[in-house]
Structure formats: C-alpha cells, structure tokens
C-alpha cells in the first residue's frame, strides 16, 4: 500500500459530504468532505505502488477543473486513470445534489 497526499489552494465550499465507489478490483472509493481550510487536500491510499506521477497528473487535472475547498480521501484498488477521473467527477456531483439513495 502506498500513501500519497496532495494539497492545492481552493476557494469554494462544497455543499455536503459525499461517498462513491467501492474498493473492488479496478475500482476505488472516494470520500469527499467540506473543509474550511480553503484548500483541496487529496489523500490517496493505493494497493498499486509506483504510480505517483500518474496520480499527480490525474489530481492536478481534477483540481484545475474543480475549485473546491474539501478533504478528498481515496482508497484505490487498481482503478485506471479514466476510472479515477470519472469517480472524482461523480463524487463532486453527489456532493452537490446529495446521495439520493432514498
């Protein structure tokens, strides 16, 4: 398991926390929570080691498109960069509209 942390300045608060995904083969789970720190903090735990550069690019791209002050925690079980991007977008979406499980 490898732990990676990234931090970026941010300005906009998100509405509510959100959770998406599952720590299953080729997938990941994302927990996103509002933060008062005016930062986007991304904490990653991944079972696939040695892909720091790829993670950095994926996260940077996400942050460049989403200005959110939030703590984002990721548990990864071998998701591809494409899956990571889609799950991140989904997490932001859910944080706006609510989980809507009911």
């Amino acid at each position, binding site marked *: *398991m490898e732990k990676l942390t990234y931090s970026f300045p941010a300005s906009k608060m998100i509405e509510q926390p959100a*959770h998406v995904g*599952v720590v299953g083969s080729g997938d990941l789970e994302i927990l996103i929570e509002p933060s008062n720190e005016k930062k986007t903090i991304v904490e990653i*735990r991944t079972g696939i080691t040695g892909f720091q550069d790829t993670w950095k690019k994926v996260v940077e791209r996400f942050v460049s498109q989403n200005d959110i002050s939030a703590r984002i925690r990721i*548990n990864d079980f071998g998701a591809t960069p494409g899956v990571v991007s889609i799950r991140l977008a989904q997490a932001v979406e859910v944080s706006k509209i609510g989980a809507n499980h009911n």
Partner: protein
Amino acid sequence: MAQIITESLVESLARERAFQLLDKGSAYEILGPLDGIESPHLVAQNIVPQFDDGMIIVKGTLNGQQTVIISIEGNFQGGGIGEVSGAKLAGTLEKLIKECEKGNKIHPVIIYDTGGVRLQEANYGLLSIAEISAAIVALREYVPVIGIIPGKVGSFGGMSLTAGLCSALIMTREGRLGMNGPEVIEQEAGIRELDSRNKQLIWKMIGGAIRHESALADVIVEDDIPNYKEAIKNIWSGEIRLQHRTKQIQNYLSLFKTLDIEKKIMPEQAKEYLNSKTVNMDIELPTPMGDVKSTGSRWFDLLANGQHSISEVPSVLVADTIISGVNARLIAVVPNPDSKYYRARNGEVGLLEGWTIAKYVRQAIEEDKDLTEKRLIIPIVDVPSQAFGYHEELFGIYLSCSAAVDAYATARLAGHPVVATLVGNAISGAFLSHGMQANRLIALNDDGVNVHVMSKKSAAIITQRTIEELDEAAKEVPSMAYDIQSFEKLGALFKLLDGVNAKEPNPEDRDILESAVIEAYNDIKSDSARDLSSRLKSDIARSSGRKASIQVREMIDLQWR
C-alpha cells in the same frame, strides 16, 4: 405489455441494494463511510481498507414494516468477514434481539455476498461468525431472519453456516451457496475430487436453482426488486412456511447414514435424495476395525471414566459422566478410517458428524427440559477441519455444520452450561460447528493446539500471497497466527492451561482440565448472560484483543433511532 426495465440487485453495490429494497424516504445508514470505522488489521498489513469495511447497515421500513438490512459488499475483499465488518453484522443482530425483547419487532434481512472469513483477519472472522450465528439463533425466536443470496459471490465458508441458520433463504440463479469454494476443494482434495474450472458442474452443485429444487433454499426469484419484496412479504405473512431445516435431524441423518457414495452421485440424483423424506432409523454403521486413537479420543476416554460412547455414528463419541458432582455430556469428533465418507476419515466434521452432534446435543436438551439444573455439555475439540469433498458440497455440508451450531446455541440459550475444551486442533468450520458456541472456551497450552481458518497453502492461493508473506503478516496481526498463545491475545479464552500433556494425557492431566471445567461451569452459573458476550468482556478483549468489536457495538447503539 411486458415490462422490460428491471431493477437489479445482483448488479448493484451493497449500499444500493439495501436502499433499493427499503421504502423510499424511510431509510438511514448506521456506521456509514463518513464514520470511518475501517479495519485496523488490513492497514497493519498494508492492504487498502474500505471506510465502511464492506458491511452496510441500513434501517428503515420495507412494505411498511420496521426493517434493518445488513448488506455485505462482495466487491471488497470478496465480502470476507473481518473484525469490524463482523462486529457490524453481529452487533446489529444483537441490538435487534434487545429491541425484540422490549417488544419492538424489527425485521432483519441479511444480503449475503461473501466468501466467508476474511483470511487476512482469520480468527477475528471465526469469532465474529460464531457471534453472528449465536445472534441469529436467538433472534429467530422473535422474528424471521431472512437471508438473500443474490450473487455474484454467493455465500461461502463460515458465512454459509449462518445462511443455514436463517429462517428462510431467498436466492437467484446467479447466487451460489456452499461451504468450501471449488478452488479450495481442488487444492485440498485434488482435481479428481473436483475440477474447479468445470463451471457447469459447479453451478449444478451449488447454484441457486439446484439449491431451491433440493429444498435447501425457500424461494428462487428473478433478479428484480419487486420480486424480492414480494418474497419477503410472503415469508413474513407465513404464506411461505418456515422449514427449520437445522432441526430436521432424523431426515438428514438417516439420508447420510444410508447414502452410498462409492460411485459418484450426480447432481440430479442428489436432488432426488435431498427431497425424499423417508426416515429409516435401523441402520447400523460399521464400527472401525482397528483401535484408532487420536488426541480427542484419548481425552474422551479419560474424561468418560469408563463410560462407553452411546453414539450411533462411530466418528462422534458421546457419553454422560459426572465431574465433581456435576452431570456432564461429553462430545468428541474422532477419526474413522473406515468411514464411507472418504474425505472425513481423519476426524473432520462432515455430513454425518454435524448432524450427529446436533442429534445428541438436542437429545440432552430434550431429556433435561424439565430440570432446573441442566446438564453441562463439553465439546472435546480436536478437529483438523471440515470435510473438503465433492459429495460434501453437493449434499450441503454447510447445513450439517449449521445444525451442530444451532444445537449448541440452543442448548446454551436453554440454560445448559457449555464448556469447550481445546485439546487439539480447532480449525475453521469444524471449530465453528463443534466448540465455538460454548459459553466458555478452555485451551491447553500446547503446540498441538491450533486455531485457524485455512491451511497455509490454501490461504496463500486465495489471498495471492506467498506462505512466507503470510507468516510475516501473522507476526503483526495475532489473529492470523495458528498457535494458541496468539489466539489467547484475542481475549476469547476463559483459561489457557499450562503444564498439561495434551497428546498423551494421564489422570493428573485430566484432573487439571476437570477443575478448570468446573471453574468455568461456576463462572457460567454466576453469569446471567446466556449469549457469547463474555468473550468481549475479558480484560484482554477490552484492553487489546477486541477493541474494534466493542467500539462498533457501542457506535451502533449511539446511532440507532
């Protein structure tokens, strides 16, 4: 017009499944991912955890009735049961028992998608599954406990024993129900016994369709939400009659006594056997030719003090004796090299053994039902494993084990003090069936006494690690180790006895064990609880061994509304 849009349970994640079944707007989650109660043991082994540990508890209403759905996430670690996930399931069921005792009837539904014990947490899974089983047996008296096995994982390992305990089982064709996974059977018994790549055969053995046709599952549904809800409604209303399979001892025991497996029995034929309800009780099983001794049988002989076994099955020894003035029934599972069940000749718990244990435990319950002082029951534990075999899976070895679990748990709840003595191996499903339901556990501090869930070779294959890596991990996580000193660190033992010769015991050794048994007996007598809660109350459990298990239960209590 035909409805073509379906709401699939099989294709959904565990959380979605729970919310899909419950009435819209009624449901809330307990101990969700935001609470962040993840597995400390996975992190310690550098394995990525999940925020909810793969166990989702959602409370709400279903068809207007108060309901809790406990849904296992099969995508995370194969739905394996670890300390946290196990405590979430057991703790929720225990909470429901308390609610029902207060007259507040809340319906439990368990959605199974699990390979059984999470091998990376091993003995925590074993302890948890014993607690889940104990809670199902107690809760069933108030309200039907419904299990759903939608697939894709199905229900395997120790969790299949808990499925066997459910009041009713709903399956789909995509669901599978069995004790030992096909890969493990092939590993343990060889490819001639079962070719795990022969998927067609495996579906015919353990798939939802055949389990339903063999009267082992109550309802089979097409995978669409309204169908599950309809099935649940029909179980609650009594339209689907509860079968109480684990109590149908005469049926199954006479079937397995008469069954001839010299020629491989095909699934279609097995189905007919399982459906025939003829009971033939005058079958004598041949007694073993030679004098076969095992650690378990030596201890049985010593403790039985000259009493002969009254059991009708040679591999299960049963005798009534008196220990320090206390009436006691001894039960031991021992080798029988002549058994026709060739995968159960070395003292394994197989088709015959589970049902036989159930028979003699229930006999004691029945005989003592009017007595205030119920007989002490002593499982003598020296079991190398459950039986891994083709016929065993085909004929539902999980149910044989469930029957034994049910009998011991029922005896405990009826007021029989049950004290298990670990004199040899206490392994996996065999230990769950024979010993784990005891009020108190006593073990001998000996290198021949081991507690674990799977042989190292099989565990290495399943978790895709080397045996060296497993040994290394066991140093960090005591629940993964095999030795009894490590098991003691989990806090479930009432006593670990030093200075006893486990393999070749003499009368002095017997005296030491007997006085420990009596001490445990007195401890049970002074305790009003008849559940397994003492395992969470020991000093070791509270200070280190079961901290997460205790915390999870406290948090369920806090978030319950």
